[in-house]
């Protein structure tokens, strides 16, 4: 189904490509609407302050405060990947592989941007296909993506800023996968895997969850078949990457010497720096997901802070209690886990909900990375599964339990009214919809990853030769050393 509509779309792309490469007319600021009444004009200005529909005046204009926040947020989310995630992961690998991790993050950011420009954005946020599983072709090559807002998604944010903001999510998601397969996969194989994975998994999934006509977009799609909610990407970003990462890691097999040789992080300092950048950047990720500098963003800002801090401190406390000392990696893991788990909930829960989420975000992922991994002996090198898949999964579920209309009226009005989400939020049962969304996400991720992995293996192979892995990927795959004394 997904792959089908994808083939169709790839059709468009080829056809569309050449003509479209010619400069496409954009419109920076549309002319003011034909003489609206003073009252309409004031209403439009109030709409700007309250982030509602401008109505008869100021149409086609972005609002400074909202645009400012969304540009800041987009920059923050890019910063999460480059250098944030790159450092967080780079510090956790052995010295001989640090550059390979950086290269993977750099390569992915370039690759995904090109896909996004060509057809990715259109596949996710277009509507011309009128499909719950895939967007449309109206935005191929960012055609029609101007500085005027796309009111399907945000009344007061420039469409091109929105597109770039969403691009940053599309970049970090596959970059997260890198953590599970670190130190043992060929650079070219990763690039090929990611290319297919974006088209088959991420773009359709993102449309289903966030697209205006999305299959499980409970908040914004009046006709959503599944009335699920995902504020900033628990399913789309963390579950999809985390579950795919586990499968890929298993197919790849463990690193040479896994379980025998010492594979301790070569620089906890880099790891901690990355964590700090991730935390700060995550404000763009979560509070930015309000797509405005409004009260929902404000609430997400608070819940993000509380969950991250509580989870980090709790993880440290657990270590202190059961192991005698709190480690840097413990604090960092907890902080990231807290941020992951609050992600789908950030704009839907209140302060106490965030604290509860923070506590759970420390306990369960802690068990996942220490016990679960030990039991099943898979080599999830940097714990992408333990933190992102497990965390994202808990988060999606907890969101269904803790979400409250009091912090986000969108859960009670508009589309939520029509598709019945409002009722679920008020009288319970949302968690069931969340389970459905989780099921779809896991199934799609796991099945697709198996298929893609074997395709890539067949085409160019997944792993470098043993000698290369022994000496390290840096000098062999990238011709450089991380550090030279």
């Amino acid at each position: 189904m997904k792959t089908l509509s994808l083939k169709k779309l790839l059709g468009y792309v080829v056809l569309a490509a050449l003509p479209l490469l010619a400069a496409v007319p954009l419109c920076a600021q549309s002319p003011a609407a034909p003489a609206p009444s003073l009252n309409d004009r004031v209403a439009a200005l109030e709409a700007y302050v309250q982030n509602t529909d401008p109505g008869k005046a100021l149409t086609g204009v972005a609002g400074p405060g909202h645009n400012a926040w969304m540009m800041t947020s987009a920059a923050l989310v890019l910063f999460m990947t480059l250098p944030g995630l790159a450092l967080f992961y780079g510090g956790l690998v052995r010295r001989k592989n640090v550059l390979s991790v950086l290269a993977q993050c750099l390569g992915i950011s370039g690759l995904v941007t090109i896909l996004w420009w060509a057809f990715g954005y259109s596949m996710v946020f277009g509507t011309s296909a009128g499909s719950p599983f895939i967007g449309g072709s109206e935005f191929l090559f960012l055609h029609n993506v101007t500085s005027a807002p796309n009111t399907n998604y945000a009344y007061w944010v420039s469409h091109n800023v929105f597109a770039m903001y969403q691009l940053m999510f599309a970049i970090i998601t596959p970059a997260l996968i890198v953590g599970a397969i670190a130190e043992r996969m060929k650079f070219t194989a990763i690039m090929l895997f990611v290319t297919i994975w974006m088209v088959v998994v991420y773009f359709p999934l993102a449309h289903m969850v966030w697209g205006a006509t999305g299959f499980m977009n409970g908040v914004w799609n009046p006709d959503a078949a599944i009335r699920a909610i995902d504020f900033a990407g628990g399913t789309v970003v963390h579950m999809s990457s985390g579950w795919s990462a586990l499968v890929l890691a298993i197919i790849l097999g463990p690193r040479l010497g896994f379980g025998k040789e010492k594979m301790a992080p070569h620089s906890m300092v880099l790891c901690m720096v990355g964590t700090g950048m991730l935390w700060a950047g995550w404000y763009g990720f979560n509070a930015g997901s309000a797509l405005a500098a409004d009260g929902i963003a404000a609430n997400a800002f608070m819940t993000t802070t509380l969950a991250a801090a509580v989870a980090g401190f709790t993880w440290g406390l657990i270590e202190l209690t059961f192991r005698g000392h709190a480690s840097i990696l413990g604090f960092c893991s907890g902080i990231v886990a807290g941020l992951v788990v609050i992600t789908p909930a950030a704009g839907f829960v209140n302060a106490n909900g965030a604290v509860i989420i923070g506590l759970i975000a420390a306990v369960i992922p802690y068990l996942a990375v220490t016990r679960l991994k030990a039991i099943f002996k898979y080599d999830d090198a940097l714990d992408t599964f333990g933190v992102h898949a497990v965390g994202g999964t808990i988060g999606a579920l907890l969101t269904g339990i803790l979400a409250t209309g009091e912090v986000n009226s969108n859960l009670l009005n508009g589309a939520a009214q029509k598709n019945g989400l409002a009722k679920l939020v008020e009288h319970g049962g949302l968690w069931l919809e969340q389970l459905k969304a989780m099921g779809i996400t896991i199934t799609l991720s796991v099945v697709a990853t198996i298929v893609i992995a074997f395709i890539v293996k067949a085409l160019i192979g997944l792993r470098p030769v043993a000698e290369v892995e022994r000496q390290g990927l840096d000098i062999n795959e990238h011709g450089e050393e991380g550090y030279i004394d």
Partner: protein
Amino acid sequence: MKLIVAIIKPFKLEEVKEALSAAGIEGMTVSEVKGYGRQKGHTEIYRGSEYTVDFLPKVKIEIAVADDLVAKVVDLVVKSAKTGKIGDGKIFVIPLEEVVRIRTEERGETAI
């Protein structure tokens, strides 16, 4: 007494260490070195400029042993460090006139 100095491939250190302690050799001193020899290095290119790295990372192990243990230790090191590929390294045996254990001031073989 002799000082046995072995230059080996880094990832072989664990194996050598285990082989030795299994054989009751309880002490050794290890350091990181760079080796130059038959084994070819790789080339690094930074923008315009190209560098051939012919000094390869190796690990140096120093083991003081009583004379009667020399043969055995050399043997253990060879077996555990060998990959058969070029660059496996060397073992040097050097005469040792005295050994002192700083903590106890013991001297000679008992100090090892």
